[in-house]
């Protein structure tokens, strides 16, 4: 017992000391950006690529000048695994803490991807007084409402991409012009049993009802459901014309494939549909994903000319990573780094409180429109026109390519209906 315990403890401590002594001394001390992302998932690796692209561009252009001194950015990515079912959120929180405490991150960008983890991380960030900009996957309106409610406790958190409530606004607009164009009035809502999707589905039902749409049904599916046949039959029997989908689980591909095989006369309109955002979606459903619409929350993720910067980002991303920008996290993460750089340069220091005030006055014309933060809730201000706010975008899969159909100002095409719907 005596020898065993000693040997085990000793080797453990030595191993730990070794790990941390490796210093990194070169020119100016770098500003460390911590990125706790679920890199095994779309919302994780696309955010990682967005951040790294922005950091490389900034460092190439000479880095961030903090009152005179030019300091480069350094990215530390840690896998939080929080989008995996069966993994406790404490894993993600431990990853965030590891970034703050042992990797000495000055700022957190990308944030944990799951809404629950992001909400849980709020109290952690306020305890360590670290600024965090959430860029991918956290759609729950509860996030910016909590910040607004307890401002001085949670003022360190920002969110640079749209959330469920703005999505609904955009959705309703599309439904209205679909109603004029094709006379579609019956909406059937399918949401994943996750709090933001479930909340959004309720709000959507209420708003659609008030706008003269008939909500023919609303189904909530627990994460991991693999059979949607009954719901699809209900859609067919109630004669619904639009299926509003709020799902970011991979099983949504089963739904779309079955929708195509059964030729259900209703247009799948995804508010959040992770499967459909990827360029690989076409191959994933062997072409059956035709006509699916999905909202990519901010414009940069699909080819459009919202601002001069959009296509510049789009091509730089494709050149560096060999694939078009994928999920909803790529352009927002890219912009988050630039917004951070701009705020640090304005504040002239890395001190959290000063950078927060600088961030609150941000007014940068970015990849997906003019980025300004609401001073109270630190939520990016959304708008329909790139000139006065962050613009969301909705795209439709038309014969193998992602065509932006909304908002009108940057649309490249208009919404088409599947052939078996047009004739009636």
């Amino acid at each position: 017992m005596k020898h065993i315990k000693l040997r085990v403890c000793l080797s453990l401590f030595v191993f730990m000391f070794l790990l941390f002594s490796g210093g990194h001394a070169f020119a100016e001390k770098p500003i460390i950006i911590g990125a706790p992302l679920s890199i095994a998932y779309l919302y994780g690796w696309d955010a990682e690529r967005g951040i790294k692209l922005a950091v490389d561009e900034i460092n190439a252009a000479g880095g961030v000048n903090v009152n005179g001194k030019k300091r480069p950015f350094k990215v530390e990515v840690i896998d939080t695994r929080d989008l995996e079912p069966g993994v406790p959120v404490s894993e993600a929180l431990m990853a965030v803490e590891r970034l703050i405490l042992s990797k000495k991150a000055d700022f957190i960008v990308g944030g944990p991807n799951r809404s629950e983890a992001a909400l849980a991380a709020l109290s952690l960030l306020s305890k360590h007084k670290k600024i965090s900009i959430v860029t991918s996957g956290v759609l729950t309106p509860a996030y910016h409402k909590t910040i607004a409610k307890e401002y001085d406790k949670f003022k360190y958190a920002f969110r640079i991409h749209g959330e469920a409530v703005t999505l609904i606004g955009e959705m309703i607009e599309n439904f209205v012009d679909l109603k004029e164009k094709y006379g579609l009035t019956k909406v059937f809502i399918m949401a994943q049993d996750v709090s933001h999707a479930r909340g959004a589905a309720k709000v959507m039902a209420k708003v659609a009802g008030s706008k003269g749409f008939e909500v023919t049904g609303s189904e909530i599916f627990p994460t991991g459901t693999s059979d949607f046949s009954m719901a699809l039959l209900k859609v067919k029997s109630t004669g619904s014309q639009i299926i509003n989908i709020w799902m970011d689980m991979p099983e949504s591909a089963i739904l779309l494939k079955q929708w195509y095989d059964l030729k259900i006369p209703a247009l799948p309109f995804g508010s959040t549909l992770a499967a459909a955002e990827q360029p690989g979606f076409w191959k994933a459903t062997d072409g059956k994903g035709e006509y699916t619409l999905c909202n990519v929350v901010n414009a940069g993720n699909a080819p459009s000319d919202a601002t001069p910067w959009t296509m510049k980002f789009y091509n730089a991303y494709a050149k560096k990573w060999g694939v078009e920008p994928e999920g909803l996290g790529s352009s927002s993460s890219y912009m988050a780094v630039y917004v951070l750089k701009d705020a640090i340069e304005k504040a002239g220091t890395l001190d959290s409180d000063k950078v927060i005030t600088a961030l609150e006055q941000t007014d940068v014309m970015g990849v997906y429109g003019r980025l300004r933060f609401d001073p109270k809730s630190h939520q990016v201000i959304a708008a329909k026109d790139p000139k006065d706010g962050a613009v969301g975008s909705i795209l439709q899969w038309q014969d193998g390519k992602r065509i932006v159909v909304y908002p009108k100002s940057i649309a490249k095409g208009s919404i088409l209906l599947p052939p078996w719907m047009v004739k009636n």
Partner: protein
Amino acid sequence: MSTQESRKERIDRGIKVRSDGLYALMSWRELCYLTLPRFILITGMLSLPFLVPDMYWQRVISIVCIYAILALSFDFMAHYVGLVSLGGAFFIGTGGYIAGILNTYFSIPPFLTVPLAAIIGGGFCTLLLLPCLPLKGVYFAIVTLMYPLFMARIIEAFDIFGGTDGIIGIDSFSSSFAEQYFVICILLIFLFGLRRFVTTDRGLIFTAIMDNDQAVKASGINITKYKALAVYIASSMGCLAGACLTHIYMWSGISQFALDFSILPIAATVIGGSGTLVGPILGCLILVPASELLRDFGTLRIAFYASILVGFILFKSGGIMEFGQRKYEQFERWTKI
């Protein structure tokens, strides 16, 4: 080595034979022989927060202690009561939720919610597990595996306690030292408490139930009552660990019912040596920091950690403690045949 045949011989140390029986200890040397391992364990654990360099690893220590408490309760149940429960996550989740609710809705300070959560949680879990007590072996294991999943789905479907978002804004322990020492002391108390309890006469009944439950029934003892007592002890320990976890992370949600909380304590027990009560703690001391160190390798971490587990099960199923104990209490020498 000479050409003659010779083989290794293992002989008990003189001290072990004398001190193991009921005879009094004659010399200081024997006294320190017995207390040295325990002494090293206690001082080692208590000095850990000072030795470790930075804040992050101190947080890892409290996580190690939480897993260790859970592994201890699994080992007590599996080895001393014969109930193999794969549902560690059920205890963690219940304890976490109760602590979260007590803290947010009734605003009770952390040092009070943790014991309360342990007591209430223990009762709640025992009540739910009562119908499964008569089951044996694989059946009990699979039922307990299902309970945490069931609780998570119930909370998700009925959207209670904040639904899938969970409860946020739970206040944490006053300082990180308080948090660590609170958890370490509880772990040590549980460890030595259980060791004492198991050797008392009342503790013997559990071993008897495991050994031969028909005989215990024939001697007029209601074994379901004692099994329920054992489940209550184990589940209140688990709920306490869950409550501490909630206060450390200031958050409790359905992912506290995740599978990781069921599997890691069992792995630690297998590696540390099941049945020795100290083994699982040693196992946690090795597994949790190792999985933290490997965090940089991303998803390979789990694959690597699973293969360590398989390796230990196959080649050293007794675990480190058994090997350590044998080395400490015996010595080997070559003898000529």
